Structures are given as C-alpha cells and as structure tokens.
C-alpha cells in the first residue's frame, strides 16, 4: 500500500503561523521512513494530519490513491504519541485502553512484555515505559496498515527504548505495515529506518 501526503498546507487558525506549506511525502508498506526536521517544523502536526486527527487547509492525504477520509470506521493509519499518559483515559483500567484497539492479538500483548497484572491497573499506577507498551499494542490492531511514531521513546530509558523498537520493527516487517518515525535522535532513526528524509523550512 501507499500512503501519500500531497501538497499539505496547515495552520492552527487565522492570523497564526503557517506551520506546513505545500508539503509532500509518501511512505510505502515495506518502508520505515525517518523524519529529521528542526524544532517547530510541525512534525507532530504533520503526523496528526496523516492520521486524520486534523484536516489540512489545502492538499490531501491518499491511501492507495483514495482519500483517507473515504475509509469509514477503523482508521488504517494509526499514530503513537510521545506522552502515553496523555492519550489513555485516566479513569479506566489499562484493559480498556487495549479494548479501544482493533482486536489486539495476544501475541502482540506478550511480545511487548505487558504483564497480566498490569491490565487491572489505572494509568497512574504504571510507569511511562509500561504505559507506552499499551499504546503501541493499541495501535497495532488487525486493520492497521500504517504506523506513525512521533518521538515514542523520548521519555523512556535506553533499554526500554530498544525493547520497544525491536518489537515494533519485527511486527511491521512481518505484517508489511508502513512506518513513519519522528525523532530528534539521528542515531535512533538510522537504526530504525530504511530511509531518512531530512526536512528544512
């Protein structure tokens, strides 16, 4: 499959800074593309547009040539965020966070090292690394075709970072899921990605 962003322009409201200006990028299913860009480039905003959370002012997001918004129900493009604690419901057990995903396989839960006991905990009772494991699992549902990883291990220690990436790389390879990774760390992207794209204003 092919995920394309075509001539995307975006700003967050009238009289605010132009964040993306006529920006294009494409990712194929067998690729892991790393984005390196200066701060303030709008990397997170770009991910949000690609995943359908924001609508661009102009330009379009195409999945296999069809507009992303024409795919109804589960979105085949799933985003994993930098701060897991901000994207899980603080009032529900972690089990509920997994159930939000698209039929998450037991294999994925085991592969990410999620322990049974954690399912019955609230987000505040887990460390950032443990919570991020749930967020990665949640994004890897049955119908996921592309993963957008926005600084997903920046807040974690090195060993957890390496554990999570090694699982994620194996998983997207086996299932031919395309991956777009955003990070400030060049060595990390060099280890993770098949292709790097450096962007500047």
């Amino acid at each position, binding site marked *: 499959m092919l995920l394309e962003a075509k001539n995307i322009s975006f700003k967050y409201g009238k009289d605010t800074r132009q964040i993306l200006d006529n920006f294009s990028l494409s990712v194929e299913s067998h690729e892991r593309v790393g984005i390196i860009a*200066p701060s303030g480039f709008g990397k997170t905003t770009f991910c949000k547009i690609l995943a359908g959370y924001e609508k661009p002012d102009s330009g379009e997001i195409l999945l296999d040539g069809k507009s992303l918004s024409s795919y109804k129900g589960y979105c085949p493009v799933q985003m994993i965020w930098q701060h897991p604690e901000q994207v899980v419901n603080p009032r529900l057990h972690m089990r509920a966070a997994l159930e939000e995903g698209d039929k998450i396989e037991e294999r994925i839960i085991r592969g990410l090292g999620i322990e049974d006991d954690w399912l019955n905990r609230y987000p505040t009772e887990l*460390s950032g690394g443990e919570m991020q494991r749930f967020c990665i699992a949640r994004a890897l549902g049955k119908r996921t075709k592309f993963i957008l990883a926005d600084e997903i291990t920046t807040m974690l220690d090195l060993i957890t970072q*390496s*554990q999570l990436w*090694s699982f994620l790389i194996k998983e997207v390879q086996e299932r031919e899921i395309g991956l777009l990774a955003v990070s400030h*760390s060049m060595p990390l992207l060099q280890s993770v990605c098949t292709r790097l794209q450096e962007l500047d204003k």
Partner: protein
Amino acid sequence: MEERKVILDIHNFSIAFEQYENGFKKTSLPTIRELDVTIHEGEMVAVVGSSGSGKSLLAHGILGIQPYNATLGGEIIYDGEILTEERKAALRGNEIVLVPQSVAFLDPLMKIGPQIRKGKKDKASKEKLDGIFKGFHLKEEVQDLYPFEMSGGMNRRVLVSTAMMGNPRLVIADEPTPGLHMDMVRRVMAHFREMADNGAGVLLITHDLEQALEVADRVVVFYAGTTVEDADVKDFEKEENLRHPYSKALWRALPQNGFQFIDGTQPYVKDLPEGCPFGPRCKECTAECKKRIAYREVRGGRVRCIHAV
C-alpha cells in the same frame, strides 16, 4: 587537578513510605533503598534512572520537601556538616535551589516577575531578571503574566530562571527539559554547565543518559531505588570501562552502540529481589548476589556489584 571541596555528600540514603493496606495494615514501601552521591564544587553530576524509579524523591529529600508520610534514612552532609531538617529549611531557596520537574511548583496566584524576584523591587534584581529572560528569549511582558497564561515551554524556562536569580552553591535540577525543543534543551543545559563552571555544584536528575553524557562530569546510574555505579563521563566511551552489568546494558542499548536490549523491566518497590536489584536480569548473578551488596571503589569509580573488577 587541584582537590576541590565536597559540597554535598549523600551516604546510604533511603526514603520509605508508610502506607495502609486494606485500611488497617501498616506497610513500609522502600522507594529509595541505597543511594550514594558525592558532588564537588564546580562539578556537574547526573543521576540517571528510568521514569518511576524514585529519582525525584532524591531532590525532595535533599530539600526537605518530601511528603509527610516519608521516612528518610542515611546521611546527607552539606558543606561539611550534617544537613538537618532545620538546616534544609534555612538553606533552600538561598544556597540550595531546585529546578522542579513540574510547573505545578509555581504559585498560580502570583505574577511571574515578582514571584521569581521573591517580591524584591530593587533595581539590581530587576536588571538581573531582565538579563536572564533575555538569554532565554522570554519577553519582558512575561513578567506580568500569571503561570496559567504561559505555554509549556515558557513555563519551563521560567522554572530554570528561578534557580539563576540567586547565587546558589548547589543547584538541583529535576528533569528540567522535557517538552522543550532540542536547541532550547542545549541552551538550558549550557546554563547549568555555566553555573557549575562558576563554582556551584549541580545535581542533574534525568532519564536521558545521552543528555547527561553531553554536559555532566560524572554519571551516577540509578536502578530500582539503588545507585549501582558512579562513573566518569569518559568511562562511557567504551563498554569495558564501565563496571556494573546494568550500566553496560544501558551502553549497549544506545542506538549507535548496537541498539541491543535485555529482557524484563525494573522491579516494583513491592517485589524487589533480595540483594542486588538487577539480579533477576543479570547473566552473572550468583547466590552471593542475594546478600546485601557493598558500594566499593573500582578503577576510580564506584560500583555496587560483587563481580566488578
């Protein structure tokens, strides 16, 4: 190199929390078990541990602002004398300053300018604050804002400014840079470095080993409530120079050093193993590792592992 004076010497430090289980049963949760850190004047020491490992409590313990149900153990010596709770109260905010982890530490009802100047209105403190703000690209108008009116990044820079107002001899920075852009992270770190170069001791508490290696003089590796190794930053250039199996595992997990990982996660306070906390994940673990492990000097650093040579 000349012998520099020790400003802070923390020895066998521990923090335990009293909790009630099922309403009546009182239990003690030893969040920090054995922590040793020494900081000299003009030195920047980074304590590196993963999130949730109890690092912030160290900062709060030194300042005497730990929660009421926390019990401290061990010894903190500041400037040659034991740091008692009374001394902590007298010194914090003056000689010892904290750059807190969260913006919740600011007074929400006080404007930024007066808050950082602690109400002082004289010309000298005004000029000083203006200078600091300029360095951080904060406009003068920011001084007239309340904390809630600022963005996350502005808040961060304001927190760092608070530490730079006085002439502290010891700066404790608790995860000072999350949420900041990389170039601002570098600028903030450069300021801490400058404070150290001017003679203050700086204790940087962080989860980010790479950041610590960029700016600090020494790195103290913290694992599940215990300091397992105290090493010179240069030791991290080669795996063989490191002493503890966990530090070595961290080294190998760096993307540029192979990106390898070991299985498992850090144990919870409640189910810590006997003896070495890293034992269950360690290849070299033997029966001897289940006993209490002493912190000892090895090749110019310190390590809490009986197999280290």
